[in-house]
């Protein structure tokens, strides 16, 4: 067997937005009780890392920037097969936008690589809390690494010759790209199916304590590039989207389906939206 692999996976803990509820009476968000989960794309990224580790032997390091509670997401990564987990956490990082986030992640990855260089960096395609899809490309750009976003399959992975062939999903189909390694991929969910973690991993994870890095140790981050200071974008006001004014609604059962539809067609006709496409 060839040499072992080192994969770094950047993960984010996010509120489970599929669980967000709206108070039907007031129309406001119910934030309480929204569970925090590992961003779903990273769960798949980690599975890819585990597959590669199973093939080549080696190590997986997971990394997140977030609040103390994000250790839960890291523990989940240990359960799924990661070997080392690092939480970069400090008040000073708070309110970071994607530019500041990519600076912190890139700088932390450089520090990890000073110990063990990585062959592959994996990111989720996007984090479901913001859906921005910016941090992965931002980190690749900062580290000057080849970037492949929306990777959906690995065709070949040649660690000895440092070359991978990757499928990338775009609107019109699939691009088949060749890239040298190390490289940074952001992944789609199809990249690898989630498997149920074996019990010994769960036990190992329950006993595992992630490393916590602050803004000053073991890496001294540039204070001008982190947190609010390092974030050019600021969030102005937030509001619930307005509804446009509704037209009439008629009940088919009351007036009969045929007539109801005749009325609907008259309304469409009057609006004139189909003239042109009709003939």
């Amino acid at each position: 067997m060839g040499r072992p692999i080192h994969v770094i996976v950047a993960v984010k803990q996010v509120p489970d937005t599929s669980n967000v509820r709206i108070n039907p009476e007031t129309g406001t968000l119910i934030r309480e009780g929204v569970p925090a989960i590992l961003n779903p794309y990273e769960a798949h990224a980690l599975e890819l890392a585990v597959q590669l580790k199973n093939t080549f032997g080696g190590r997986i390091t997971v990394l997140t920037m977030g609040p103390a509670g994000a250790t839960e997401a890291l523990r989940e990564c240990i359960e799924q097969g990661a070997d080392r987990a690092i939480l970069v956490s400090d008040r000073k990082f708070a309110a970071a936008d994607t530019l500041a986030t990519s600076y912190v992640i890139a700088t932390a990855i450089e520090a990890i690589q000073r110990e063990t260089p990585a062959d592959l960096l994996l990111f989720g395609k996007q984090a479901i809390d913001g859906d921005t899809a910016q941090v992965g490309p931002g980190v690749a750009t900062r580290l000057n690494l080849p970037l492949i976003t929306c990777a959906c399959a690995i065709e070949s992975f040649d660690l000895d010759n440092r070359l991978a062939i990757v499928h990338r999903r775009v609107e019109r189909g699939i691009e088949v790209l060749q890239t040298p390694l190390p490289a940074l991929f952001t992944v789609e969910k199809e990249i690898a199916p989630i498997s149920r973690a074996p019990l010994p991993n769960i036990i190992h994870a329950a006993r595992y304590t992630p490393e916590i890095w602050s803004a000053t140790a073991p890496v001294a981050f540039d204070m001008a590039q982190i947190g609010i200071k390092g974030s050019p974008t600021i969030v102005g006001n937030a509001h619930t989207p307005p509804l446009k004014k509704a037209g009439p609604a008629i009940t088919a059962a009351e007036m009969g389906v045929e007539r109801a539809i005749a009325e609907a067609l008259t309304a469409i006709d009057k609006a004139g939206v189909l003239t042109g496409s009709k003939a």
Partner: protein
Amino acid sequence: MTSRIWTYIEQEDGRAHPVSWELLGAALKLSRDLPDSVVECVLLGEHVEPIIDQAFSFGASRVYAIDDAVLRHYRNLPYSAGISNLIQQHQPEIFLVGATTLGRDLASSIATRVSTGLTADCTELAIDPKKILAATRPTFGGNLMATILCKTRRPQMATVRPRVLPTPQPLTEWKRGEVIRAPLGMREDDVAVKLLRFVAGEAEEEIEYADVVVAGGRGVGGAKGFALLRELADALGGVVGASRPAVDAGWITYAHQVGQTGKTIRPKLYIAAGISGAIQHRVGVAGSDFILAINSDPNAPIFHIADFGIVGDLNTVVPELTKQIRAAKAAQKHD
């Protein structure tokens, strides 16, 4: 000093993506609220000459073009490096990019290279009283809209999804403005990533730019129910769309999904059958000219945005609708 509002012209194989013109149209509107501003386009690729004229026809006053064989296919490195150089030279105030797979990949790298703020997937753009770009986007799973500002760094960057903005018409009379041609300054050997081949996806119906979309949700109940919608769509010369649960259930493919995690559409006629009208769905159809909702629940939120609503069972309403439309068309032919 003149403020430059830039838009990116996304092209592949010599064809411009329509989102490019949507951005250009929006930029012209922003320009009215930003004193002493001009609207200019950025275009990269190989053999892109014909697209330059198109840009002028949509109202650009200047086009920056980099035409190079290395740019034949989109790849992150040469495209982002090329545009970042242009930005550093010409210092635009605002830079808008389409939120396509290509555009998101590109914009993120550029923003990092030039160290500025980028607001992704905006649904609304405006110039605020302090002459800052106010970019509005959904957050928290689409349940809230937030307005994002980038006050201190330039350019102010934003991506906007196709069809969120109206499609402008090309001007009938236009003149060719200035074209600034720049060298890429990179050779093929400098680009490590190679495109080996492209596997075109199965030709799916294009729902984004269709005039009529007949969409179904969980209330349709299954693939069979979608056959009814298909008949109606055919009768109207339109295409079929769907809500996320219908796609998740496998009744129809993802390419048909409308909404926050699907496509944004702005057809002339949108028919929603068995769709409750959740916020994440509504954001995808808000730009429709006319919305007809069919739902058995009179309290369904979809009726709040419908121009006309029919409270009833779609299994009887939809076939009858198809019947009457066919009849009307037949009558028209006879006239």
